[in-house]
């Protein structure tokens, strides 16, 4: 069963002139218990999409979608506040730069207790306080922090980035979410810490059947930890499928280029040779090309590419390209 089903979600940046379409009709489905990767270069609208799902974008942005279903309920019919209250009950999000996401003037304990759901407790307020404290300690144990006494009374700046990210995950777990959106959870972290965080996320996925939307530009980690992958480029949907499909037989020229540019996926290439790259760089928001936004950089671009391609489905492997590589395998 689909947990989250988003069809043709667009996000516009409202400016003084005409609005800029930052995310252009992206679709995303997440099944129960799966780990889905969301991949793309920096500036391709991954974080924006995640924040739009959470409903935490401010009024500069305008979000629109053809379909926004959460566990079968149509959320587009509800008002923004109702949507946000339903989503924030079942979906939690962790961000990049965890230290910046914790209030610098409050202790970890205060912030953790604040995230704990009030309704599960009974009794008078002093009993509730005790229960809330216990729950906070429990949460810290769940994410593998054993020294809870010291951690609870520390301020964010006294902890390392990896510890802060664990605290963020603990806060996310407080609501017992069905879906965890992890927005580059290990950016700017050492590889040992990265491994710890990913293992923690994987164990939560397996033990608690929690779905995870893992946003990253690090292909190596994404292949290792995900079941399915969605690729985005410059705010447009590129390709989606299982991790195997995407990495063994990418249908889209962009995905092909992405995989060719990764050293670990190309162990067979000779040493000191150049990796394949696409010419140019990702377009800025003010100068987006019409049609398929990869057009100017694409090796297979033809005249038709000035019209946006429609997503085609090949047995669960979706691709949005006029001249897909499907025939070449």
């Amino acid at each position, binding site marked *: 069963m689909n947990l989250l089903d988003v069809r043709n979600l667009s996000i516009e940046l409202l400016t003084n002139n005409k609005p800029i379409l930052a995310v252009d009709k992206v679709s995303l489905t997440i099944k129960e218990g799966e780990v889905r990767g969301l991949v793309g270069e920096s500036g391709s609208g991954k974080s924006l999409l995640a924040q739009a799902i959470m409903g935490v974008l401010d009024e500069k942005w305008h979000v629109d979608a053809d379909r926004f279903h959460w566990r079968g309920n149509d959320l587009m019919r509800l008002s923004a506040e109702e949507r946000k209250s339903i989503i924030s009950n079942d979906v939690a*999000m962790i961000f990049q730069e965890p230290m910046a996401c914790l209030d610098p003037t409050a202790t970890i304990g205060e912030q953790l207790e604040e995230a704990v759901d009030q309704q599960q407790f009974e009794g008078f307020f002093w009993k509730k306080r005790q229960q809330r404290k216990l729950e906070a300690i429990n949460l810290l144990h769940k994410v593998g922090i054993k020294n809870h006494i010291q951690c609870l009374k520390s301020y964010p700046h006294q902890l390392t980035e990896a510890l802060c990210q664990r605290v963020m995950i603990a806060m996310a777990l407080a609501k017992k979410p069905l879906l965890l959106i992890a927005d580059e959870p290990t950016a700017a972290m050492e590889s040992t810490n990265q491994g710890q965080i990913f293992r923690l996320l994987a164990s939560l996925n397996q033990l608690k059947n929690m779905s995870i939307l893992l946003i990253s530009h690090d292909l190596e980690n994404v292949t290792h930890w995900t079941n399915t992958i969605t690729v985005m480029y410059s705010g447009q949907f590129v390709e989606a499928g299982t991790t195997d499909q995407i990495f063994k037989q990418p249908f889209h020229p962009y995905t092909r280029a992405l995989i060719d540019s990764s050293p670990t996926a190309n162990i067979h290439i000779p040493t000191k040779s150049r990796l394949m790259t696409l010419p140019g760089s990702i377009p800025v928001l003010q100068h987006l090309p019409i049609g398929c936004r990869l057009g100017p950089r694409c090796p297979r671009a033809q005249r038709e590419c000035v019209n946006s391609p429609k997503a085609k489905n090949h047995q669960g492997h979706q691709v949005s390209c006029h001249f897909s590589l499907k025939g070449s395998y």
Partner: protein
Amino acid sequence: MLIFSLRRLNLFLFTIILLTLLSFSLSFLFPGNQLVNISGQVNATDEQLAIIGESYNQGGSLISQYFAYLSHILSGDMGLSMSSQTPIFNEILIHLPATIELTLVALIIAMAFGIPLGFIAAIKHRSKVDDTVLTISMLGYSIPVFWLGLLVILIFSIQLGWFPSSGQISLLFEIEHVTGLLLIDIMLSDDPFKWQAFQNALAHLVLPAVVVALAPATIFIRLARTAMMQVLESHYIKAASAKGLSFRQIIYRHAIRNAMVNVIRDVGLQFANLVTLAMVTEVIFSWPGIGRWLIESIYQRDFTAIQGGLLVLSSYIFIVHILTDFIYAGLNPIARGKKYGS
């Protein structure tokens, strides 16, 4: 926290040393005999001057003279006033508390109105409320304090007659001088009419305090507005919103404290400005404070009084500055652990 306090104390000590150096060098820079300038003994005979010169170590080097001056100040002897021949220290004890009272009340008024207004403007960013608050703050900041003082006296004292126009309290009441802070002295006294006296003193305080508070309040509005807007843009507010907290909870639990941290840091800086405004206002409202006394001394070329008043007034500003630093450290855990005092 201990190291933080020690650093502040250290800073205080060195600033005081610099201030005394300045006021000591002023006695050389003012025209006339340096010994007369520093002691204020205008009518002394040559023998008396010789004795005073002995006590200020006139024969020794400049450094030993400075230390002699320091020991005089530490024992509470700042010389005599050149115009009235009364000890400066006593004059300051009489006048300083009135200024402390006026400036502290003005600071409280400025903070109590400025900071919440700034927060509201930031929360309702780009709306009519924001524009109105900004306009008011622009207007308030542009009005010169001496003109505002006169205008306020004209309207509220003379035309409407709501508040008295000058002085600290009506002459009908006789309050014993204990702490010097009039409002506290009234509360301490056992006068049967002490509530009337209190009301009367408050009525005298309202106009000058409001006049002094206006310009700093407008600065606090701008500071609070920018601080709050910065905080609302930050990642932890977004994260708290993703956690499922309502907007009200986010504002009360996270945004206000973090924005206050940034505002409090600048309050100390604004206080010097506020004391300058208070000096002008004291003249307009005949407030018996140290500012008016200092300005009169400047008119009368009372060099000893200028040196002493300068020293005391700048120490007072500096003490308030350090106190706000402590409040800042109390609110902001990052500042407490900072290795180097900044």
